[in-house]
C-alpha cells in the first residue's frame, strides 16, 4: 500500500515540479486566480447597493455562497488544460514512452496524473475563494454559515474531481492535444449547467438538498475514475498515432454484435436474443428492486406528507370522485385523443431518452429517470388512497393491464442501460473504449428492438382500448 502510494506520488510530484517551473502555466493561473476575487468582490458591493435599494436582503444572504461557487469553478475551468494534456501532451512531446517502459503499474501512472490534475485546480480554486472571503469581511453582507461554506467547498471539490477525471479520460483517448482541447467543452459546458442547477438550489434556500448534488457528482466522478483506470492501457497510448473516423468499421462492429451468429430472424430470436436476456438477470433484479422501492417510497411519502399540506375532507373527496367519473366517459374517445401510434412513439422515446442519459452517466441518470417515473406511479396510487380509492383496485384496473407489457419493456430496457453502463467501467483488455461503447449499444438495441418495441406496441393497444374499459367497469366501486 505504502509502496503503491509512493509510486503514485512520484509521478504526481514530478508533474507538480514541471508545472510550477513553467511560467507560461503559472503566470496566467496566478493572475486569474488573484484577479477574479477582486472582480467578484466589486460585483458583490454593487449587488449590495442595488438590492439594498429594492429590499432584496433575502437574495443577498444567498449571494456570497453563489459567488463562492462561481469563483471555485472559474480556476477549475482554465486549469483543466493541465489534466487535458496530461497523457496526450506527453505523448506528443515523446516523454511518455520512457515512463511507460518503466516498472510503474498502469494505475500508478494514471492515479499520479489524476492527483496532479485535481490538486492544481483545487489549490487555485480554494486560494481564490480564500481571497474573496477575506475581501467580503469588509462588506455589509452576511458571511455564509460554516455549514453552508463547507457544503459549497465540498461541491467545488466534487466539481474538480468530476471535471479532471473526465479530462483525463479524454487525454488518454485523444491522439492530439488539439483534439483533447476541443473535447474540453464536453466537460466544461455540462458542469456549467450543473452549476446553474446548484445555484438555483442555493437561492432556493434549502441547503440540505445540496448534499444530493454532492453525492450525485461524487458518484459520477467515481464512475469516471473507474472508467479511466479500467481502460487505461499502455498499448492504447502507443498503438494509435492517428484517429480515423471509420464509419464502415464502426458499422461492422455494431452489426456484428447485434446480429451475432444468427442466419435468420428466427435464429436470432431462438439463440442470440435469449443469450443477451440471460445476461440481464442481475441488472433486472436490481432494477426491479429499485423500481418497487421507488413506488413504495413515493406512495408512503404522499400518504404521510400530503395530508399536512392539503385539506382532504370528505366533501372534497366526493367532489374529486365525481369529477373523475364524469371525465372517465371521455375514455371512450381515447383512441382519437391519443392514437395508438402516438402513445407507442411517446413510450419508445422515453425508453430511448433513458438510454441516452444512461450512456453518458454509466447507467445512473437512465436509472434515475426510471425511478422518477416509478415514483410518479407510487404518487398516483398514494393520491388515490388519500381520496379513499383502493390503490390496489386502481393498480389492477388502470395500470396492470397495459403495465404488464409496458413496465416489462421499461424494466428490461433500463436493465440493458445499466448493463451497458457497467460494461463501460469494466476492464476489457481486448477492446478499446469506442468498440466497447458500440458493443454496449448493440446489446441494448437487441433488447430494445427484439423485446421492448413489440411489448410497447402491445401496451399501447391495451392502454387505448382495454384499460379505459376496465377503469369504467371498476369506477362504481371506487
Amino acid at each position, binding site marked *: 500500500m505504502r509502496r503503491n502510494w509512493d509510486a503514485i506520488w512520484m509521478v504526481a510530484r514530478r508533474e507538480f515540479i*514541471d508545472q510550477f517551473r513553467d511560467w507560461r502555466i503559472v503566470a496566467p493561473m496566478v493572475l486569474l486566480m488573484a484577479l477574479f476575487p477582486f472582480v467578484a468582490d466589486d460585483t458583490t458591493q454593487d449587488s449590495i447597493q442595488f438590492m439594498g435599494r429594492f429590499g432584496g436582503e433575502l437574495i443577498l444572504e444567498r449571494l456570497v455562497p453563489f459567488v463562492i461557487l462561481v469563483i471555485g469553478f472559474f480556476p477549475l475551468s482554465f486549469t483543466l488544460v493541465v489534466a487535458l494534456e496530461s497523457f496526450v501532451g506527453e505523448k506528443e512531446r515523446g516523454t511518455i514512452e520512457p515512463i511507460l*517502459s518503466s516498472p510503474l503499474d498502469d494505475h500508478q501512472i494514471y492515479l499520479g496524473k489524476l492527483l496532479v490534475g485535481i490538486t492544481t485546480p483545487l489549490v487555485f480554486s480554494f486560494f481564490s475563494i480564500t481571497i474573496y472571503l477575506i475581501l467580503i469581511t469588509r462588506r455589509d453582507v452576511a458571511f455564509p454559515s460554516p455549514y453552508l461554506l463547507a457544503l459549497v467547498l465540498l461541491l467545488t471539490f466534487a466539481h474538480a474531481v468530476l471535471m479532471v477525471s473526465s479530462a483525463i479520460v479524454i487525454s488518454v483517448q485523444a491522439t492530439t492535444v488539439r483534439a483533447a482541447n476541443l473535447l474540453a467543452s464536453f466537460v466544461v459546458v455540462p458542469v456549467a449547467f450543473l452549476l446553474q442547477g446548484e445555484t438555483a438550489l442555493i437561492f432556493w434556500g434549502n441547503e440540505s438538498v445540496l448534499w444530493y448534488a454532492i453525492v450525485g457528482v461524487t458518484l459520477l466522478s467515481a464512475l469516471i475514475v473507474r472508467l479511466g483506470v479500467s481502460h487505461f492501457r499502455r498499448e492504447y497510448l502507443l498503438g494509435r498515432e492517428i484517429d480515423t473516423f471509420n464509419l464502415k468499421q464502426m458499422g461492422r462492429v455494431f452489426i456484428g454484435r447485434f446480429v451475432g451468429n444468427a442466419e435468420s430472424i428466427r435464429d436470432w430470436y431462438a439463440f442470440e436474443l435469449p443469450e443477451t436476456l440471460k445476461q440481464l438477470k442481475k441488472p433486472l433484479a436490481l432494477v426491479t428492486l429499485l423500481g418497487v422501492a421507488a413506488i413504495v417510497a413515493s406512495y408512503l411519502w404522499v400518504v404521510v406528507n400530503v395530508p399536512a399540506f392539503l385539506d382532504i375532507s370528505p366533501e372534497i373527496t366526493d367532489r374529486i370522485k365525481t369529477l373523475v367519473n364524469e371525465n372517465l366517459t371521455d375514455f371512450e374517445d381515447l383512441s382519437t385523443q391519443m392514437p395508438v401510434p402516438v402513445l407507442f412513439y411517446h413510450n419508445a422515446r422515453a425508453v430511448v431518452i433513458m438510454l441516452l442519459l444512461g450512456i453518458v452517466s454509466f447507467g445512473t441518470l437512465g436509472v434515475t429517470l426510471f425511478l422518477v417515473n416509478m415514483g410518479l406511479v407510487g404518487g398516483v396510487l398514494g393520491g388515490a388512497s388519500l381520496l379513499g380509492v383502493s390503490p390496489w383496485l386502481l393498480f389492477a384496473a388502470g395500470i396492470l393491464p397495459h403495465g404488464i407489457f409496458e413496465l416489462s419493456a421499461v424494466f428490461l430496457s433500463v436493465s440493458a442501460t445499466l448493463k451497458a453502463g457497467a460494461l463501460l467501467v469494466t476492464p476489457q483488455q481486448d477492446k478499446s473504449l469506442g468498440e466497447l461503447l458500440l458493443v454496449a449499444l448493440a446489446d441494448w438495441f437487441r433488447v430494445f428492438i427484439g423485446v421492448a418495441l413489440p411489448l410497447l406496441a402491445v401496451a399501447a393497444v391495451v392502454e387505448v382500448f382495454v384499460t379505459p374499459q376496465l377503469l369504467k367497469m371498476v369506477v362504481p366501486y371506487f
Partner: protein
Amino acid sequence: MIETNDLSKQFNNNFWAVQGVTLNVQPGQILALLGQNGAGKTTTVRMLTALLAPTRGSARVAGFDVTKNPKEIRMNVGVLTEQHGLYLRMSGDEYLDYFGKIYGLDAQARAVRSKYLLDYFGLGEAARRRSGEYSKGMKQKLALARSLMHNPSVLLLDEPTSAMDPESSRLVRDEIARLRSSQRTIIICTHNLAEAEALADHIAIIYRGKILLNGALDELKQRVLGPVEYEARFADAFDTSGLSLPAGAEVASRSETSLKFRIEAPQVVNPGLVRALASMNAPLISFHEVPRKLEQVYLKTMAEAQGLAYAA
C-alpha cells in the same frame, strides 16, 4: 537473453506491423535491427518491452515472457526510445534521480549511479542545468544514461547515436561495446550502417514487418553478395591472359593493373593463386580481400525485396 518466435503484431486497422519475427540474441551479443522507417523496428522493440501485446507468437526477454511478466521485463530492460523523451524542465541529475527512484534504487545508489553516468558521458558539469538547455547530443547522452540507470541486463536502443557529434558517438559506441563485454544482451535499431557493422555480432533486416535476413555479418555477406573477392594489384600494366587459375577461383573482373578473383575457399585457393602469379613474374604490389560493407548487403537485400535492380 532475447528469444522471439513468430512474433507478430496486428493493429486495429488490420495492418500487420510485424509478422513472424524470430530472433535469438544471447548475453554478450549485439543484434542490429535494420530497416526503413515504418518497417516494424519500433513495434518489435515495443513488444520486447511489453508495451505492445503480440497478436501472435511469443517472446522471452531476460528470462521473462512478455505477455505474462511485463513488470519483470520492464525492471530488467533498459530502453532508449526513438525520441529522447526528456523532461526539459528537469536538470540532468534530477532526471536520472527520478528514473532511479522509479526503478527502486535507494538514495545512495541513485546518487552514485547518476554521478557515474553523468561523468562518463561528459555531462558532469551540466548536471545541474535543465536538460532543455542541452544540445541535441547531450540530450541523447542523458537519455542513454537513463536507460542504463538501473543497470539492466537487456538493452534496447533505438538510434543510440543519432544527433551526436563524432566524439560523442564514439563514446557511446565504446560504452555499448563495454556493455556487451559485461554479458548484456543488446538490440540496436539504427539507420547508421557503419555503426551497426562496427558493433553488431548479428544483423537482422526487417522490411514491411518481416525479417528478410538474419545472421552473423560475414555469413550474410557471403549469402547476399556471394563468395569473397580478392584483388591483385600490379605495379605496371600486366597481361594476365596466360594465368592458369587453380580450382575454386574465378576471375570477377580485370584491368591492366589489377585482377579481381571470386574465391570460395580462400584458405585453400589463395596460396596456389599467389604462387601462380609469382611464377608469371607478375609485378605484384598487393594481394588483398576486397572490403565488402554491410551497406552493400542492406541495399541489395532491400532492392531485391522491392523488385528493383541493385547497382553495386
